[in-house]
């Protein structure tokens, strides 16, 4: 039966993340963007919140929690309300850990997952490729069989945590379709390139990966990963973070418009501004509902590619509009770096590119 009420547990989790985002994330977001660094201590705090390892089996140091895409979407929205770069930084290890939980062999889980249960642990995934027509329906990075090994060739980009990650899940095309492979950092032929310089998410270090004849054993292929499903989880994460960013923009612009006076009254009392704010409020809710719908389908075991792709696509364009309108409400103040809105606009521009940078 149709219901939009969070469970008590989800409310508790949301409240915890809300506090974390407002106390630990928001206050440092601008400085992180300017300096291009995120304090590693945040990883420890994220570990204490169980952001990565709570769904791990108890044998691997987790709590064996049943993962929910809806709960994941709620968490991602609240984190991104704090800051997008920091959200991606904190959530990136999920790309690796969740892929193994969902589609790894027993042996692979035993080999890699206990490290996530023991403390903050860096691992990541290489999904995006540096070409204008990239999408996850076909990878240019290839994997071909060589006896009992796989040989990987290709170029990846926008890989979070690449500088410190111990291992990556790499998505590549095989003759039998797309597949996921574990590539440890020290494999011959894997080159982690110079840090990328992006328009937004500047606090987050991302790097390109170059794979030239990287040979890995069959035991590094994830045997049971339902890749389309995994990508749907990524789309939901993308849409949820977009919602958080859009909400941040809306609330900031709303509060500003009630303070800022022109011609003797707050500019929010002018319809030209008030209607922009109303549109922003509607869009934030629209993005969230589309995201939750897709997440609910994932949790329920229903096909979800249409809904998750729809949510992600809608969120990408709508969030950009919300961010741009927020900047417009602030006028000149929106354009200067003393205010956060220009940062949010730069980050918002990326959602059409960011699929594959997070998962729920």
């Amino acid at each position, binding site marked *: 039966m149709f219901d*939009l009420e969070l469970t008590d547990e989800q409310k508790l989790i949301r409240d915890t993340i809300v506090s974390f985002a407002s106390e630990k994330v928001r206050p440092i977001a601008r400085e992180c963007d300017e300096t291009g660094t995120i304090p590693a201590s945040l990883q420890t705090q994220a570990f204490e919140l169980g952001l990565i390892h709570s769904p791990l089996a108890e044998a691997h140091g987790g709590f064996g929690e049943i993962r929910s895409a809806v709960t994941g979407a709620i968490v991602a929205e609240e984190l991104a309300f704090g800051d997008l770069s920091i959200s991606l930084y904190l959530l990136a290890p999920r790309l690796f850990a969740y892929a193994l939980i969902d589609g790894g062999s027993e042996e692979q889980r035993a080999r890699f997952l206990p490290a996530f249960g023991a403390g903050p642990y860096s691992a990541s995934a290489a999904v995006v490729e540096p070409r204008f027509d990239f999408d996850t*329906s076909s990878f240019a990075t290839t994997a071909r069989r060589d006896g009992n090994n796989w040989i990987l060739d290709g170029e990846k980009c926008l890989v979070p945590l690449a500088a410190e990650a111990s291992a990556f899940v790499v998505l590549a095309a095989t003759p039998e379709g797309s597949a996921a492979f574990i590539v440890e950092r020290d494999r011959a032929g894997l080159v982690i390139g110079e840090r990328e310089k992006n328009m937004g998410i500047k606090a987050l270090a991302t790097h390109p990966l170059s794979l030239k004849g990287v040979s890995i054993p069959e035991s590094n292929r994830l045997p049971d990963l339902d890749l389309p499903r995994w990508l749907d989880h990524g789309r939901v994460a993308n849409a949820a973070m977009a919602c958080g960013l859009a909400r941040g923009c809306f609330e900031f612009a*709303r509060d500003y418009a009630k303070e800022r006076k022109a011609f003797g009254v707050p500019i929010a009392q002018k319809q030209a501004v008030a209607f922009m704010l*109303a549109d922003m409020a509607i869009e934030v809710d629209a993005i969230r509902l589309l995201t939750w719908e897709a997440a609910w389908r994932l949790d329920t075991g229903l096909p979800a590619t249409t809904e998750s792709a*729809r949510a992600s696509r809608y969120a990408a364009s709508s969030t950009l509009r919300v961010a741009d309108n927020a900047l417009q409400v602030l006028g000149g103040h929106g354009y200067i770096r003393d205010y956060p809105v220009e940062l949010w606009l730069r980050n918002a521009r990326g959602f*059409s590119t960011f699929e594959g940078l997070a998962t729920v």
Partner: protein
Amino acid sequence: MISFDLSPRIAEMKNAIRSLAEQAMRPIAREFDEKEHEEPHEFQNLMWSISGGRAFGSSDDAPNEGKSSGPREGNLGACVTIEELSWGDAGLYLSIPNAGLGGAAVMAAGTAAQKTRFLGRFAEGQPKWGAMAITETHCGSDSAAIQTTAVRDGDDWVLNGTKIYCTSGDRALRSGGFVVVWATVDRTAGRRGIKSFVVESGTPGIKVIKVEDKLGIRASDTAMIVLEDCRIPADNLLGVAEVHQSTEGFKAAMATFDATRPLVAASALGIGQAALDLARQELAQRGVEIRYDRCDAHLSAIERDFLDAEADLQAARLLTWRAGWMMDRGQRNNLEASMAKAKAGLAVTRVTQKCVEILGPIGYSRQLLLEKWMRDAKINDIFEGTQQINMLIVARRILGYSSKELS
């Protein structure tokens, strides 16, 4: 717990209405678009016999239905069924005999005795309609500027004025139904003086002087009504007669819209979905399949347009369901109802225009119903509060402003 599942009861109703829409509405949709002002009697009688005069998807506490067990879902159910009926045809949907908006006003503001007196008739006899008359030639959204007067004379109220754009007004007065008329008891009191009165069919002094010719929803009658010394019993006033210092009475009347706006949004969704379904089908016949999991660079312009239109409509649908769901839970949904109405009215306008554009000359031709749906769609951006009025309400609510602070 968050769920987007419709209950078995609503899902079953949805399927039943879809069949009805396919069999009883689509085949006559064009006919009653072209024969404006003619009655689709056969369809109306069918609907009257099926519904027993109960508004389709009226809420759980509708007069002719016992309390259902389990959680209330009458408003959400109404959103779903009205979407399906409007998928069949929005004009015909609006021509269905029931208490309509007039009934909604009686339900919202009437006493138990008034509900029995005015709504009982919808459970028996020949098809009847209820209607609501608010708009006047000089005022629409600004309902507080109403000039129609109600003057107390002994045990009666005497009404004088002219009302326009009264949906089903002609049918209501011809069928033994009623029209709820908004009038002022004190022109100097502004919105505090606005009251609503039930004028029953057959009352001397009320008559329809014109039925409008329209762009769309032509199967629906839109009446201009004149009240000339129209005398009604004192007890036909909904609510209280006193002009209070506060605007609570006016606000209560406006609260009717919190229930009806999601229903208008739902009707918009049905038209939009019809257009999308047809466009997808026509495109598929020409070898164009819509792909969801591709980046823009791999998609044709038509696919991109289609995906954006469909997403916009789905966003509107979820906002609409939320507004209905909140109503069922007894939560105030003034903000959410206006969000849904604003989003859905605009979305369906754009979606239907886009579908006509996508199908080119076929879309523009009257050989398909698509061009009709585009014409029908636009009303949803106007009636039951224009796009702009709903945005204004959303803005006031999110900013915490009164109508004085943000006008």
